[in-house]
């Protein structure tokens, strides 16, 4: 059972990773990031059931989701600011800082 969960979590993590690295649009990258966080949360939740240390795992999942939410707020505002500034929300449009 746990192998299946870990496979799903690994797959999700890898998909998120691929999105982060390969996709051009910022939102797609953001989604990839969230996907990786969710994969980690899934793994954590599963392990929490098995672990003997009580509720530590579950508390961790809750806190991770809270932190992910906070991150999302900040991330989306930044992406929107880029959009409003007239530049396409693409990774390539933000290349002035170089060298």
């Amino acid at each position, binding site marked *: 059972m746990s192998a299946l969960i870990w496979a799903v979590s690994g797959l999700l993590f890898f998909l998120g990773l691929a999105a982060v*690295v390969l996709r051009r649009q*910022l939102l797609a990258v953001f989604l990839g990031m969230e996907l990786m966080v969710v994969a980690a949360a899934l793994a954590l939740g599963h392990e929490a059931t098995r672990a003997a240390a009580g509720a530590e795992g579950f508390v961790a999942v809750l806190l991770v989701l809270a932190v992910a939410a906070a991150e999302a707020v900040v991330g989306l505002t930044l992406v929107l600011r880029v959009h409003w500034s007239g530049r396409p929300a693409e990774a390539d449009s933000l290349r002035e800082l170089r060298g």
Partner: protein
Amino acid sequence: MIEIPLAVYLLFLAPLAALAVGFFVTRPLKPEWTHIPILASCVVVTCSAASLAGMVYEGRGLDGTLFYWMVAGDWSVPFGVRIDGVGVSVLSMVSLVGALIHVYAAGYMKGEPGFARFFLVFHLFYLSMIGLLVSNNYVQFYLFWELVGVCSYFLIGYWMHKETARRAAMQAFLTLRVADFGLMLAVLVILGLYRNTRFAALYAVAGALPAGLLALLGVLFVWAAAGKSALFPLYFWLPDAMEGPTPVSALMHAATMVTAGIFLLVRSWPFISLVPGLPEFIAVVGAATAIFAALLAASQTDLKRILAYSTVSHLGLMAFGLGLRHVGAGVFHLVTHGFFKAVLFLCAGILAHAAHKSTVTVSEVGGLWRKMPLTFVCFTAAALSLAGFPFTAGFYSKDAILDAAFAHGGWAVAAGLAIAAGSAFYIFRMLFLTFFGSRADQQTMEHPHEAPPVMAVPVAFLALGAIGVGWLGHGLMRMLLSGWPPSVPPPGLTEPSHAVSAAALMAAALGAGAAYWTTMRLPSWDWDWRRERPALAALFAEDLGWRRVPAACVSSAVWFADKVGRVLDHDSWDAAIEGSAGACRRVSEAGGRLATGSISDSLWWVMTGAAALLAWAGYR
């Protein structure tokens, strides 16, 4: 501690005091009086040399230390004095001839702009020559040996405005420096193995030295002597050194400095004589130099250059005598040569002084014996002594060498006779061209006048010496015995058999006759062969091509230095290091370009970094 007599201290202190007074007192205040304290010190030195000679004559030699010069823990180099036969005999000649030449110089150099500078350096040379003759260990010997070289640089180059004088001074100094390489290496090798270079200590252990070391030391000493005493390979600086004023030529390049080389050989004789074949080698080199130089002397037109080549020839002769293991004969000829060569140089000086030029060529003089009788008489006396006519000093000392040549037999006899004939030829050619019948195309001097007394008197004294010194031969030999290292056969002076004297006289007469025939009978012969065969004349002017060798050495050294200095050091190695800074810049720019600024690239790098860490953790 051996009680050191006052005379020894005077030898050093008098010149030092004179130099101090000269430099600090008379030079700034009254430059033309600089020679007064210096002449006084010459007198003091000559007297103390005479007293030491008397002391040694009675057999009381001396070898003591004045003070410790270099010191390092238990090791030290003393600054000492060794008064023995060899040293004192040459010392007395040098001090006497030197003093007289000082007097002569006072007259000759009067009115010269650098009068004070000249006399100070001249006397410093005098002091260092004396120091060299009385020092008791090789390090101190090397000290004065180098000092003499430096003084010769400043004296030859006295007339700095003349380009030829400057080049001659530089050539002399560098050649002597190359020769001193040998002496310094020898002294260092001795110090390296024995930590002590006192002559007394080394003579005692001379027999026990390993053969290889002895050979090396011998060769090095000969190399050093060849430089200083102008033997064959390194003689070319001496003729050019005539650029200096005549007193310099007289003192240095006739009587004293050039004999230092021979003196070194005599001082190191216990080592040289133990090396099989080395004395013969010296004899061959000496003879070759003598004949070669005599030939060249005969072809020169400048009076002083003739005498310069004659000095080279006679130094060769001394080396020849030494080489034939007749040390006494060599030293005796050294002493007599000092006198008559000085007279010849001083007379040439008087002629030049009269013509108001630094030097005079043969074509400018002629038929002067009536106008300058005293100079003529002194010149002739010295010329006879040089050629070796009976009852002159040269006769006794030259015959002693010829006697050694006859004893050795074979090639030595031929060489001895050739030298005798050659030297007679060139000296009488000079005598006839200068003092008798003026040639048709000669420009005779306007109004030749006799030299002032301050120059004439010393010449006269020296001429007497040139004649009389010969009779002191036996006294000299007795003196040489005192302090002579026991391991070597004593330097005896055999009475030359009548046959030898006759043969020598015959050769000399032959030379004189040939000189008479070529100069008086065929008046223009001396000039004609030069015009008809310019190539031969040029060859002679270049010392039969030998002058090109040192010139080639110098230019190749400068070329090599430029290759190392400019090409290797500056253009390639330094450029490589500067280049490395450029390489850093290129790496830096490449690193900068790596940061493309796009988000996906930086994320890609983050992921690869994490993957690398993961792999590393997994792998270990």
